[in-house]
């Protein structure tokens, strides 16, 4: 039988891979996708614990996380397009306007 720990470990693995991607990739859009991935692993934690505690609130929070992720994707990709218009690149090494 699968316990809640299996789901939590799977979620932790996926979150770690997402963090690894955020820290190592240079392409801003891929970094963005890794953030979506991390949000998804958090969703898995919410639903696993929602089932473990026999409580609906975890699933409700997944709904809100999805809404936030959709809003984030819309705004973030608009920012990417604006950056691309300015710099002709979305490499994170080129995002140094705020750096001294």
């Amino acid at each position: 039988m699968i316990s809640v720990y299996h789901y939590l470990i799977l979620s932790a693995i996926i979150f770690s891979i997402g963090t690894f991607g955020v820290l190592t990739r240079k392409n801003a859009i891929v970094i963005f996708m890794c953030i979506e991935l991390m949000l998804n692993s958090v969703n898995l934690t919410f639903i696993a614990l929602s089932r473990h505690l026999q409580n609906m609130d975890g699933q409700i929070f997944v709904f809100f996380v999805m809404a936030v992720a959709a809003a984030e994707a819309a705004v973030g990709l608009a920012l990417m397009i604006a950056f691309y218009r300015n710099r002709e690149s979305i490499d994170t090494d080129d995002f140094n306007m705020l750096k001294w």
Partner: protein
Amino acid sequence: MATWIFYILGAVAVVATAMAVTRRNPVHSVIYLVNSFFALAMIFYLLGAPLVAAWEVIIYAGAIMVLFLFIIMMLELSPGEEADRQGPGALQWLPVLLLGAALLTCTLLLLQLDPAAGQAVPNWYASPRDFGYVLFHEYALAVEIVSFQLLFAAVGAFYVGRAASREKQPGGQQ
């Protein structure tokens, strides 16, 4: 049976995620990420959250990933497009094919679990009716706030996208 499906789906999710993070071509990353989201959606179903599983496919794999793909195609970010003009090699599409086949197998196995015997339905099962009741009774204010947030995000996206294009026309006169 459900235990084996969970292990297969977990392996598919981890492998697809790892491939998505390490691919050089962003389009390949998107494809692997869609596979990963499908595996996670089926895990959600196993956990007794069918509505969230459907949203995972519709919102994440459907809407958000298509948006990413659209932006990647629009900005022409795929490297080495001239290099593989003759189409991707077997080494590139075979892993996706294997992951997709594993997901399809899991879907069929899930369907095959007899619902009448209570195998397919987990002991904690949140039907869409229960979910909607809790969402619109206890969290009605939060739903309103989230809808406002989506509206603001849409306005912000329009503004950021429009400001850059408007800048070019008067920018020439400055």
